[in-house]
């Protein structure tokens, strides 16, 4: 055991594991998702679970929280071995998980959400004063500062995560699984979440932390377990690994995602946006993207970038603003006009705006293209033949022929989404968080796809909340904050740290 741990917990070391998993196996329809996994979780420790999409992280977490019963192996809680847990029993044993998709009752207040299922009552009447008081205490004890009378729907994603954490801790969660709690968050919000996670550790909670951000994991985790193809390939204290080693353990090889030499942008403008405004979300936003150029819009997630998708795709009408694609004016606020101009907008929210979960992989992949070419008849075999080259070009992998797209891993879904839009002959495109929730290898693949796109002479406008991604892809970067443009930089004229500082503070420099 490490020095750190022995100082923390004194004499009792290995025996203090609150949860031990031994030789857990699980397969789905013949495909093995977990092949004999061991895992020890200690109180007061942040245990990062790393691995690529489909490595078995989610299955392992689902075994922990009782959603799936393992085919073999044991889950030991406080020394009692269980062959499998049910959701109810896991909860009673204090194993809680905060999924990637926030699960709050959006119409209820923060206080009600924190106390959900355990509202203090007197003769069946809810004691509202006590509700607020107890919720306030629960939040306060974790150092969370949120007004308990706000409705959950009005919270930011980060605040929702915090409320969910507070609820689980109040219910007696001793093992808390956080699935990508900082995905899609701004640096500032992500920081608040990480502070909360450290606080949980100091309070003696065993935290299982799942994240794709290497730097974040190196900064926050005490211990790292890496899964690859359903087996543990590394487990040990975080200090033993450096970022490169971690990536190698996850992918099984070195992954290189460095800026390649791209042909210089052409002189003609591919996409130009002039003084776009909508309410307070976006104010007087202008940007010009030349063909073959990648311009990034960087800012806190949930700020102007996400509104840009709605406005550029035509889903919403701006209060004012002009849009030109390839020099031709395009009516704003109309989806057909936007599509007709050759502008392709790829959403960052593939679940609600990107894919049709019930339809098959191939149908999703060809959904837009088949409509543009005005097909009338639908033949499954011909569809498969058309989809095949796109699948290959975008590296979409599926275990069985053509499953519903919802059965694919996040990285594969993202590739389907990109393939769907970028294979339709775009003149210009807008990409919102194109590597949202995908593993490091898929991320490198997607970055290469964007490079190719620019090299083909497409004007690419990229909205991102990740400074790394912007440094990797963009030729120029526009920093936005509170709906306003605060700075424009050539990527060669700014360092990563300056960029992070600008995005974090959002103040004009």
């Amino acid at each position, binding site marked *: 055991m490490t020095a750190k741990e022995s100082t923390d917990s004194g004499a009792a070391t290995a025996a203090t594991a609150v949860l031990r998993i031994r030789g857990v196996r699980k397969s789905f329809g013949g495909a093995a998702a977990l092949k004999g996994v061991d895992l020890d979780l200690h109180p007061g420790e942040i245990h990062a679970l790393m691995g690529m999409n489909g490595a078995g992280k989610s299955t392992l977490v689902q075994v922990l929280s009782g959603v799936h019963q393992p085919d073999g192996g044991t889950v030991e809680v406080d020394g009692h071995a269980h062959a499998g847990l049910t959701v109810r029993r896991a909860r009673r044993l204090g194993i809680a998980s905060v999924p990637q998709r926030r699960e709050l009752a959006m119409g209820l207040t923060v206080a009600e959400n924190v106390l959900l299922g355990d509202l203090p009552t007197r003769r069946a009447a809810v004691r509202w004063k006590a509700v607020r008081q107890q919720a306030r205490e629960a939040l306060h004890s974790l150092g969370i500062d949120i007004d308990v009378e706000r409705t959950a729907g009005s919270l930011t994603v980060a605040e929702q995560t915090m409320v969910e954490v507070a609820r689980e801790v109040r219910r007696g969660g001793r093992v808390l699984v956080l699935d990508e709690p900082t995905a899609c968050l701004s640096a500032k919000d992500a920081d608040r979440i990480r502070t909360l996670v450290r606080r949980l550790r100091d309070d003696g909670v065993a935290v299982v932390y799942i994240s794709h951000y290497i730097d974040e994991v190196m900064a926050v985790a005490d211990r790292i377990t890496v899964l690859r193809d359903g087996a543990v390939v590394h487990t040990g204290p975080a200090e033993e690994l450096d970022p490169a080693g971690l990536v190698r353990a996850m992918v099984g090889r070195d992954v290189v995602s460095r800026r390649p030499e791209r042909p210089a942008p052409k002189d003609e403008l591919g996409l130009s946006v002039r003084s776009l405004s909508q309410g307070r979300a976006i104010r007087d936003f202008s940007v010009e993207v030349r063909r073959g150029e990648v311009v990034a819009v960087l800012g806190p997630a949930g700020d102007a970038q996400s509104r840009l998708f709605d406005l550029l795709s035509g889903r919403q009408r701006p209060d004012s603003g002009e849009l030109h694609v390839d020099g031709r004016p395009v009516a704003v606020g109309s*989806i057909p006009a936007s599509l007709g101009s050759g502008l392709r907008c790829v959403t960052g929210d593939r679940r609600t705006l990107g894919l049709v979960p019930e*339809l098959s992989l191939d149908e999703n992949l060809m959904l837009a293209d088949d*409509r543009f070419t005005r097909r009338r008849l*639908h033949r499954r075999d011909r569809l498969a033949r058309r989809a095949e080259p796109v699948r290959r070009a975008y590296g979409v992998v599926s275990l069985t022929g053509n499953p519903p797209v919802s059965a694919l891993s996040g990285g594969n879904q993202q590739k389907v989404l990109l393939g769907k839009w970028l294979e339709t002959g775009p003149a210009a495109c807008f990409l919102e968080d194109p590597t949202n929730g995908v593993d490091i290898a898929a991320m490198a693949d997607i970055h290469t796809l964007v490079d190719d796109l620019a090299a083909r002479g497409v004007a690419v406008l990229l909205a991102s909340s990740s400074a790394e991604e912007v440094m990797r892809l963009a030729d120029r970067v526009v920093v936005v904050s509170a709906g306003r443009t605060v700075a424009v930089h050539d990527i060669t004229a700014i360092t990563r740290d300056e960029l992070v500082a600008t995005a974090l503070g959002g103040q004009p420099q």
Partner: protein
Amino acid sequence: MSVKTLPDAPGVAEPPAGRRSRFSPGALRGVPHAGLIAVLVIVVAFTAMRTETFATDRNIVNILSQVSVNAVLAAGLTLLMTAGGMDFSMGSNVAVTAAVAAKLLASGQPTGWAVAVALLLGTAIGLVNGLVVTFTRVAPFVATLASATLLDGVALLVHDGNTISIGTRMFALGNNKLLGVPYLLVVAVLVLVAAALVMRFTVFGRDAFAIGGNEHVARLSGINVTARKLVLYGTTGALSGLAGLMLLSRLGSSSPGGTAGLSLQLAVVAAVVIGGTSLAGGYGTVTGTALGLVLLGVVANALNLLDFSSNYQPVSVGAVLLVAAVANEMHKARSARH
């Protein structure tokens, strides 16, 4: 029983697992609508054992022609519900179109004219529903429930308290047979097959799945969602007009508070839901709907043959609906886990 040899379910791609490999129960579970077929087989076997008359050609043709009107409505509703829509007014649309057609025929107008008016009127009513749903964002459930109630009232006004008889006009459609198969049944099968083909082999049909699955994505992918919905509601309206003519020709008259109206609609919705079509949209099969129709028809016929009072009819429809809905959910949960 398999009069309706429909193409395979147009749902999400499932490997066409060895159909009817009776020797492995595991493979049987992969067959689409396995639960529904099982229930149907049990009901049929039970009834056939208890009464002689059930398993005769005559009775089977009788069952199928009794569900013909419902089948025409259910075919349209399957398509509409798959696209995330809902039309509660089809049955009431039938009542109105049947009444108007009866009135025209009774006043001596040519049959062709009455047929055209009925079909156009049905389509127009459907389009009005569609316009309300697409342009006011009122939930389809609410909008069409309102129009159903309204149309039921209109049908009463048209009748003005009297039963309108059409004598022997359109007698052939309602009573004649083609090679031993009633015309009504032929029409119903044609409509069902057409709906199945549209859903499986046309981009229009796949658009319905996309719209029902995720309307935002459908719109962003260049599907003209508004136009598609109007066509879908117009189609359910036109099919209601057709069903009205079929009902009229079978009964030979149209009476106030007759078989059409909201109660007919509920039986149709029940058949579609029993067939596994999702109320939320994004999933639906005509095969399932056909099975649901046959199941409801068989249960009604069995109760009749076994000398139960006709008051048990709604009880049986409700019970079958509940059992089938539970079976569908269990099947879904199980296939999600595997």
